[in-house]
């Protein structure tokens, strides 16, 4: 891997290169936002994503008129890992497991998939149907650790060596090593990894060391997924770095991680699995910034892409985390990761009947090829985009900055064909599809908000993605959310989010220690050990550790339980008094979440977690509206709840200045997005050029 002697710290300025860019690779487009550190000038762009993602990344820099050498920092989210996983195009990978446990990946904790296929006799567990590591490449080696870290059966080095040689014969170039109870004593795993390195010197080898916590299945899955995508991701980052260096790059490349922070390439390459879906996380990261800057610390986010919509709930400006991040049933990552959920409704989703015979939008999608019918690239089945074109929500001449002239007649014809099965008109089906898509997205938002005890009335809805703003006002209405915040450049919001993300490196260790003042020293020691290690690692990577601070969390449960609860705690050294205070806090947390507390039962700290944070200095953005009148023209369109076509004003977003108001019904079009403002609502522009949509204030009210 290429290294840079002059790795910069986040936000520290270099003399020659003045641009900071965020680049987010999506399924269809690679989005870029560039920010000039001194002038605050902002440029945005969009290029088609390429199979070799580094090509699109380099092209995107050119697309905003920059030379690579002018760039000081790149903050990057990509899809190399997730693409390799979804298409099962990862490295040919072997598994070294404890003898008797080679099938943990297939067991998948044994339960079925909740949802539509729960009772389907033809259901196959994803790993059985499409294995990451086929059984012929899985080996149980002779060894066994007990729960307390003592060896029940010592490691038989020969059994590892034999397996390694067989893997070599089979052409394996990556190996996952995960042994039972290794979280408490990793001696056998380390020795096994050494033997593998001897026998397979060129192979990628991953062990539980990437996140040594309990739960053998989830840990094995995490290590196996890492080994499967690791070589692909590391290879990609390597190629990207080389490509950048060849073009004179002397700055720093940061990678967006699923813990909600960025990492150096070196750190990102240590456990590549934790950057599987970095793009959507970049979006959430941007939303967290927005939540911390504006008047609304509580945001519900909908990032509407071509094939799916990512949703997240941000409360109090805090990063939402989940401890059950699952790729497919049975393939779960152990580390708490940013909680983004997806639903298969996007701008390119097909309009078809569902199982009950009702109008459904998605999950099947026209994708980018052939795309919606109105793109005129061979699509024949109507999509949500076609519905919006026919409704007038998408204006044919204003779409995608004029890059594509939408063929509304083709959309109408396609909608008519599909509508005939319900005896509906094309426009009726378009309105229904728009409504269904909004309802589906609202339902998904509800699962991560209302059903997690959040009162959505206190939240604002924040759309992103090119299609987000055209649905947001209606989604908000369905949810009972009063306020919609459409950020600047919603089409490049994830890329923008990348630009504004702190360095965050998370490490954890299972300790299974009572939360008891008597144990304060050993808990503190576990924290301190992790912090020292991360500090040294980051220092070795050239990071500015003088600005580093740590966040801490414990995972706690009652003795005798399995499910632990992540509780952030103050970063200060943990004393006996500090522990004493945490106990009642845990009981209170428990009562709130589970309807009871068991105050007489000792609380156990299963795992300690630290996150090293180096904050990014937040650069100033130049926020100058374009010249000219914002009002463009009027048009007739069909809006939700309206009996027939209504006349609306069309306004150009780029020309709207702070304080300006747009009364609904209206469309606000911009380079890569269109915002719908419903009747009875008013949009106004705030000082950061966000478009805020709220109920119209009338004389009576």
């Amino acid at each position, binding site marked *: 891997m290429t290294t840079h002697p002059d790795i910069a710290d986040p936000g520290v300025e270099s003399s020659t290169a003045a641009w900071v860019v965020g680049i987010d690779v999506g399924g269809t487009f690679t989005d870029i936002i560039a920010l000039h550190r001194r002038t605050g000038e902002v440029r945005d762009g969009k290029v088609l994503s390429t199979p070799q993602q580094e090509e699109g990344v380099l092209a995107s820099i050119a697309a905003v008129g920059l030379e690579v050498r002018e760039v000081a920092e790149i903050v990057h989210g990509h899809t190399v890992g997730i693409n390799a996983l979804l298409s099962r195009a990862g490295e040919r990978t072997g598994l070294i497991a404890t003898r008797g446990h080679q099938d943990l990946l297939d067991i*998948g904790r044994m339960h079925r998939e909740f949802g539509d296929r729960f009772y389907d006799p033809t259901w196959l567990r994803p790993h059985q149907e499409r294995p990451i590591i086929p059984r012929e490449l899985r080996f149980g080696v002779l060894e066994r650790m007990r729960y307390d870290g003592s060896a029940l059966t010592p490691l*038989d080095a020969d059994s590892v060596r034999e397996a390694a040689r067989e893997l070599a014969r089979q052409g394996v170039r990556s190996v996952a090593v995960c042994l039972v109870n290794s979280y408490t004593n990793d001696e056998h795993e380390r020795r096994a990894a050494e033997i593998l390195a001897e026998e397979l010197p060129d192979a990628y080898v991953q062990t539980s060391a990437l996140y040594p916590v309990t739960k053998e299945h989830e840990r094995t899955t995490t290590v196996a997924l890492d080994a499967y995508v690791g070589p692909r991701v590391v290879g990609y980052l390597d190629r990207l770095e080389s490509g950048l260096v060849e073009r004179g790059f002397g700055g720093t490349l940061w990678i967006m991680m699923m813990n909600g922070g960025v990492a150096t390439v070196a750190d990102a390459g240590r456990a590549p699995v934790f950057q599987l879906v970095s793009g959507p996380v970049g979006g959430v990261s941007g939303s967290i910034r927005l939540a911390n800057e504006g008047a609304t610390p509580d945001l519900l986010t909908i990032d509407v892409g071509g094939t799916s919509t990512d949703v997240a709930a941000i409360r109090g400006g805090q990063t939402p985390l989940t401890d059950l991040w699952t790729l497919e049933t049975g393939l779960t990552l152990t580390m708490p990761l940013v909680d983004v959920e997806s639903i298969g409704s996007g701008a390119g989703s097909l309009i078809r009947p569902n199982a009950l015979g009702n109008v459904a939008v998605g999950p099947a999608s026209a994708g980018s090829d052939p795309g919606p019918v109105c793109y005129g690239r061979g699509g024949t089945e109507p999509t949500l985009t076609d519905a919006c074109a026919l409704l007038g929500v998408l204006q044919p001449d204003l779409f995608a900055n004029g890059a594509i002239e939408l063929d509304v007649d083709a959309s109408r014809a396609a909608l008519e064909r599909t509508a005939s099965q319900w005896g509906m008109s094309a*426009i009726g089906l378009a309105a229904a599809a728009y409504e269904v898509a909004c309802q589906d997205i609202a339902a998904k938002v509800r699962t991560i908000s209302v059903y997690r005890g959040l009162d959505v009335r206190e939240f604002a809805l924040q759309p992103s993605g090119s299609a987000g703003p055209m649905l947001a006002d209606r989604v908000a209405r369905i949810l009972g959310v009063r306020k919609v915040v459409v950020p600047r450049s919603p089409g490049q919001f994830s890329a923008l989010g990348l630009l504004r993300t702190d360095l965050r490196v998370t490490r954890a260790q299972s300790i299974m220690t009572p939360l008891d003042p008597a144990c304060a020293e050993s808990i503190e020691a576990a924290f301190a050990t992790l912090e020292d290690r991360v500090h040294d690692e980051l220092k070795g990577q050239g990071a500015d550790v003088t600005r580093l601070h740590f966040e801490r969390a414990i995972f706690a449960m009652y003795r005798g339980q399995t499910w632990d609860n992540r509780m952030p705690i103050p970063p200060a050294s943990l004393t006996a008094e500090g522990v004493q205070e945490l106990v009642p806090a845990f009981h209170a947390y428990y009562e709130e979440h589970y309807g009871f507390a068991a105050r007489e039962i000792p609380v156990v700290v299963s795992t300690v977690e630290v996150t090293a944070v180096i904050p990014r200095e937040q650069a100033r953005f130049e926020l100058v509206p374009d010249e000219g009148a914002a009002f463009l023209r009027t048009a007739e369109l069909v809006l939700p709840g309206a009996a027939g076509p209504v006349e609306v004003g069309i306004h150009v977003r780029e020309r709207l200045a702070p304080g300006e108001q747009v009364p609904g019904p209206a469309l606000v079009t911009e380079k890569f997005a269109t915002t719908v403002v419903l009747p009875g609502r008013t949009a106004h522009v705030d000082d950061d050029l966000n478009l805020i949509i709220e109920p119209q204030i009338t004389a009576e009210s």
Partner: protein
Amino acid sequence: MTTTTPATDTSATGPDVELDILRYGLIEVAREMLDSLMRSAFSPICRDILDCTVVIHMRTDEGWEVAALWEGCMQHAFVAPHIANFLMDDWDIDTMQPGDVVFTNDPWRGSLHQADVNLFRPVFVNGRVEFLLQSTSHLVDLGGPIPGGFSNGAQSHFEEQLKLPPTLLYANDVAVRPTFNFLLENNRVPHLVLGDLRALHGCLVVGERQLQDLIARGGLDDVRAAGRYAIDATEASMRRGIASIPDGDYSAEDFLDEDGVTDEPIPVAVTVKVRGDSMEIDFSGSARQPLGNSSTAWCEAGRCIEAVKLMVDPSTPVNSGTLKPIDVLLPAGSVVQTLPPSSASSHADIGPRVINVVTQALGQATEESFACDTGTAVYIGFSGIDTRTGHKGTPWGAYGLAGGGWGGTWKEDGVSFCVTPIGNCRTSVQEHVEIESPLVVAQHEMLIDTAGAGRFRGGLGSVYTIMAESDTLVTVVADRLRRGAAGANGGGPGAPAVGWYIAGFDLAEHGDPMNLRGAEPLFGVFDEQGRPDPVHGEFGRGARYTTGKFSNLVIKAGDAIRLIIGGGGGWGDPLAREPERVRQDVRNRLVSVEGARLSYGVVLANGEIDTAATGARRAELTAARDAGTWEVPIAAPLEWTL
């Protein structure tokens, strides 16, 4: 740009969408309740194995109907509707107050067995009980002579666990001390049971909070309408599925090996009658109730309907609408409706058998059928007093489930590592089990040659070996010991269950499940040398037990028990399976080279298909089958080491 359309057109999905959101809201309340229950429970049964479910019952003119639920375990979804109605038949609704919780685990009021307890909490709206929230889970222990809930050998319910008719557990959210005292003082692991009871109650508190929010947002009338919409939509979908089956009477018969008391097989007979979009499932002709505990009291009335769901309507959410198109006929005093005071604790084999027999009957009516799943959980319960340093004197209880295979289907192989469709059990987190219990999970892997052969084979069976570090009391509940899960459409049966005791377990010595050195047969069909052999062997030869249903076996510290659970049955002719798929199975050590030759007629040499030899072998087997001298063999591992 736009065309004029009638105003009504744009709201074509209007009313349904509104109701659908509230319907979804009800399901989400249930999901949240189950999440709360699972995460806050103490015993591995609830928190890991997921043998628990939550239900929202809605008050209707007829009684109580399930509007939404979230399964941990499939069977609970089908038995919950009756338990609520039995309970409310016996409880004066006018005496109920907010925060009350009523408990019952009575099999004659619909409970699966005494170990599966049910908590009900009324939800008041404007002073009237409108909903009942239910949480249900298997508890680790509830007293009686045998730990864990499966009272093998018991011939009356007096010899089984505590059995409580509807009893107040919380009054206005205050624990009723006599009830708790009764449950905890008569218990081997009171700390685990107390923990789970708290979690079961806590999830009702959480659920009521969420449901009241939903009602506050949607209004009671609309929430009730949404519940009705959910039930109607599911019923309609179920009826469409039933209507797709040609009218007719379809009969099938299967059996349980025996009841653990006598040696007699127990036939389970069914006639499924289809008339348009209605159905009857009639168990007339089934065996009378056995002497042992292998029958159930009432739960098959709902549980058998899961078979129909699996066949004709797998995708809609289960609620009372799932049950509505079907009447079930349970002969009084039969193995599917045993009369008190008989024992009724071992529901885990009759349940899958009932589902197997109904799917076999319906399989005659449709090409879109599937072969039987393993049909037995090969359940193992452990308990004892810990002797490990730092744990000395702690009572403990744990469960083991190895999974098994589902049958091959009309379009694909069966899934492996999946318990019978009455459940949806997860594995325990082994690393946690080993902290809490003096056990070492030494082996949990698929076992070669255990899947029923077929064009689409069954899911694989597996081997499960547990070593004890303190003396451990064991209960085993296993069936299908003589012949494995039946195949369908010409597919072969899966492997039967086998058990061994291994003294002085050493991974280096006993790490290969195909090596029988030091393994003493507990149960199964064995040849003269002690190899399992369901085709030529003799049942019980050299084995400690002549049943798979026994209790009070002690595993001494340092020793181990090893169980094989068979795979699912195969679907379709194995001689028609793509040879390449057979080769892949051989590469992955799921089928042996010899097994490929014997059951699939595929001849492999050095890992490659010998096309000519395969053609000849398949022709030979086809001719032999036509002549009545060959049938698809029962799956069985072949390459044992003595």
